[in-house]
């Protein structure tokens, strides 16, 4: 390592490039989604697209500042930053309610949403805590504190209330999973209440987390699809068959991938895991669907209400119905830029189309091809972040990178999922695409902090 090496030499430029591509695509998508004929220039600062340019500029400025920081500032001041975010989360509860929630600090359109920054603050704090633990992670105390760092902001967010961000915070489970934080102490204390069970012999570790999350997703998707039907090979099938078919398709793809990439002696075990997983998830889908079918109507109604499902496409199900119609009408190549007929500001069929339902404009104007390209870009970004995470010698950076990856992934999955009818309608932004300063600043700083930490990977040993 030479002394005159600058930070610019060590930065992972592919990460920065991905950020720029996504942000610029997002800006042009907003330019179409909220286009106003009276202000045709993209630099109309009274319009959302003009404002988004300002937000991009501010975000990049903040990102640039982050790159210039001293190398250990972040983990030195991690808890201060976390504390500041928690203070904002408390402060926001004393503001006036807007649309049934207290989420905004500041005035008018230039206000900020503390909950967006709380994700960043929590990610930094959890990285600092886990990397700073000199005791074994599996100890009850440290596992408990690690969980409390996440649970505390979640409770504050629940008070706003902001269900979307609340769910996003559960993504930290994946970070704990990766770091091996055990939940045995919680299970153990629960099992202690049951007589004749030796709780000390219960050892589940954190392996239940992915199973829990995947099962949760399958349950929600099955319920969402339970009332629809699909046409396959000329047969009309119940909607949940779409999931089964997807699982089947994915199993075959996964088997092929394993065969091509994994060493021979590892293969057999993986084949076994994949097939068991596929059978298990299919069974779960079947089971949920049939149990739902047996439920009494008022129980069904409660579940449908929770998922935002309703038979009335022009009433309670209006948002989802319009969003899905916009996506579906895009076809293979889409209707063309500025040519949307549903997700168009003049027609106004899709509500909140520059923020929560921004993906509609993309999918309608650029079709399946455009949607797939953007989805792939996100997956490439996520893989890149995981790749960065795994090349660190620093636990702090790895934990932070995992946090960023799963937060972005949850936003992606819930946002796109709800526009294509695979997730309940929960209002959270699509990173880099939805209009709004807070989320753009927050995601920008996440990536730039990551880039900064990564650039130090050769000299940081913690």
């Amino acid at each position, binding site marked *: 390592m030479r002394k005159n090496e600058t930070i610019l030499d060590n930065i992972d430029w592919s990460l920065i490039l991905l950020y720029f591509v996504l942000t610029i695509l997002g800006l042009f998508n907003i330019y179409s989604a909220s286009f106003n004929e009276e202000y045709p220039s993209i630099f109309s600062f009274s319009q959302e697209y003009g404002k988004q340019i300002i937000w991009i500029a501010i975000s990049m400025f903040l990102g640039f500042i982050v790159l210039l920081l001293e190398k250990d500032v972040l983990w030195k001041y991690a808890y201060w930053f976390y504390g500041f975010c928690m203070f904002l989360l408390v402060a926001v509860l004393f503001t006036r309610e807007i649309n049934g929630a207290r989420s905004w600090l500041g005035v008018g359109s230039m206000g900020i949403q503390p909950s967006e920054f709380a994700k960043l603050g929590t990610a930094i704090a959890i990285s600092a805590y886990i990397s700073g633990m000199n005791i074994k992670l599996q100890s009850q105390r440290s596992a408990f504190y690690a969980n409390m760092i996440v649970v505390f902001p979640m409770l504050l967010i629940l008070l706003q209330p902001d269900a979307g961000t609340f769910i996003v915070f559960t993504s930290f489970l*994946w970070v704990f*999973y*990766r770091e*091996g934080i055990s939940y045995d102490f919680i299970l153990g204390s629960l099992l202690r209440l049951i007589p004749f069970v030796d709780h000390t012999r219960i050892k589940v570790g954190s392996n239940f987390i*992915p199973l829990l*999350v*995947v099962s949760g*997703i399958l349950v929600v*998707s099955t319920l969402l699809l339970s009332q629809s039907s*699909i*046409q396959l090979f000329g047969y009309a099938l119940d909607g949940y068959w*779409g*999931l089964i*078919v*997807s699982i089947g*398709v*994915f199993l075959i*793809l*996964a088997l092929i991938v394993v065969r091509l990439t994994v060493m021979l002696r590892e293969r057999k075990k993986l084949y076994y895991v994949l097939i068991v997983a596929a059978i298990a998830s299919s069974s779960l889908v079947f089971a949920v669907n049939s149990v739902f079918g047996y439920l009494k109507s008022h129980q069904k109604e409660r579940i449908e209400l929770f998922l935002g499902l309703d038979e009335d*496409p*022009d009433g309670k199900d209006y948002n989802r*119905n*319009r969003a*899905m*119609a*916009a*996506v*579906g*009408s*895009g076809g*293979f190549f889409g209707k063309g830029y500025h040519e949307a*007929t*549903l997700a168009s500001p*003049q*027609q*106004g*069929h899709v509500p909140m189309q520059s923020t929560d339902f921004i993906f509609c404009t993309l*999918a309608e104007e650029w*079709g*399946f091809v455009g*949607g*797939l390209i953007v*989805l*792939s870009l*996100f*997956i490439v970004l*996520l*893989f890149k972040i*995981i790749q960065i995470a*795994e090349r660190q010698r620093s636990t702090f950076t790895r934990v932070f990178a*995992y946090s960023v*990856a*799963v937060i972005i*992934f949850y936003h992606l*999955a819930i946002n*796109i*999922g709800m526009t*294509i*009818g*695979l997730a309940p309608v929960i209002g959270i932004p699509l990173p880099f695409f939805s209009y709004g300063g807070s989320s753009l600043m927050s995601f920008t700083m996440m990536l730039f902090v990551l880039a900064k930490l990564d650039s130090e990977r050769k000299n940081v040993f913690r």
Partner: protein
Amino acid sequence: MNSLEYRKFVVLFFFLITAGVFSVRMFYMQIIDDKWKLRAEEISKYKMTTYPSRGIVYDRNGNKLIANETYYDIMMIEEEIKDFDTTLFCNTFKLSKEDLIRTYESMVEKQGKDKKGKSNYRKFKPYALISGLSSDEFSKIATELQKFPGFFENIRTLRKYPQNSGAHVLGYMNEVDGDILAKEAYYRMGDYIGRTGIENYYEVELRGQKGVQYLMKDARGNISGSQEESKYDTAAIPGRNLELTLDADLQTYGELLMKGKIGSIVAIEPSTGEILAFVSSPTYDPNLLIGKKIGKNFLMLQEDSLKPLFNRPLQAKYPPGSTFKLVTGLIGMEMGVVDSNRAFSCIKSLVNCHGHPTAMSMSDGVKYSCNPYFYQVMSRIVQQGKSRSIFKDSQLGLAEWYEYVKSFGLGQPLNIDLSGDIPGFIPDVEYYNKKYNSAWAFSTIYSISIGQGEVGVTPIQMANLACIMANRGYYFVPHLIKSIKGKDISERFKEKHYTKVRPEYFRPIVEGMYRVVHEPGGTARRARTEGLDVCGKTGTAQNPHGEDHSIFIAFAPKNNPKIAIAVYVENAGFGGTWAAPIASLMIEKYLTGEVKQEVKEKRILEKNFLIDPSIH
């Protein structure tokens, strides 16, 4: 820590499987399944049909027979209704609350249901709540209407029949039903179609062509622009105007004369086959059958015991009575079994007759309408002695006779330009063989010689027979169409149809018809009209429904005739008493434009058979 590193694969696998499921889902939604595309069209597109104005119908003198009048539908979009004041609304539209609820429910019901049994009614779409308000009615509530958000008017045109006459010619229109919707792609729910008369026969010409505008609508259902620069829009093509052969004045006058009588008048211009008047009595005001009142009024007319909806000139089958003697005489001469100077004595033992001098010629026979005279002509037609068997001989004769009669346009529909004309009936050999088991001769069937028995004709066929007499041997298919704007009328109306009787044989018959009216002892002295040379023949048809039908066919003037006419007055007795004077008044009205025979006219106008059935 190393033991945990494999977990990155679980995380990546989770990312991938989600992206994979999303891709499959997007592929299915955007490419395989059409459901969301159809839904998007339903939400964002609006196919607006523009309606052409229906063609206007004129008579031969340029008087409007059918016009268009503007009407208003009160439309509603349920979603946009705000602060609805039921009482004020009901007062404005003069409805009771129950009526309003019933109207609303029937409107919703009319939209039908989808496969799942859910109503097709949509709260965000406009529907006609109240339809068919006249301009007057609408102007009274126009300002009030603005007080009801969610309600607005839709302008529509309906037919109007300014002459208040000619109902059976003009016909009526109503909403298309399921049968028509299934058969003809042009029509949509709520469209109107001509059901009878000219409105029906010339439907395609009159309706024009609907236009289409493809529009965009926004989330609130407002039209927000056109689609693809209106590339696929088509303009509505207005319907064609028609000129009918009818003479509105004559038609109205005919209906006036027939008031209080059941029957028909058909008047035709012999040189062209153009129908001048077409009266079916009792008649009705065609304006009864338009707009919202059609349902109620149609039911009323349908239940009337005098059957005003029945198109008598076209569909009523009567015996021709003595008018048929003209045909018998002509065929006899053409076949050579008699000549025009042949005398037959009035032998009442053959067939009953009234007192008159002996008919010394064919012309006399017509003048006196001598039954035994034509009995003897017919017996020579049917039994020519060509076969030794009397049965066989009769069959040969009748078969020959049948072909001649057919050439007069009898026993088959004339196919005029109104639908529903019936063939009438002329008995043939096969018919009698069946009826009498092949054992019949002239003596069995003699009553057909004087137009009784099985012979059945319609008034339009009788008027056509008058034309043949006027033209001395040919006719044009009677028709109502004179011209169609921008299109030729059918060639078949310009084609001469010759009878199988040569023109020279018509001279003595026509002479007889002239003498019927003009000479003492003629049967239709009441048809005489100064200076008009009316030639005619009376008929008195015995029938099973009561008094004889009074029949008269005529044409005038004798040379170069301008009008041929047939008059039927049901159960009115002798042909010369009622039908003949009616015919002469019609002829006078048409040829001179006015009626000077006031006494005669008064007698007809005052006669009402419906309240006073006596025939004199």
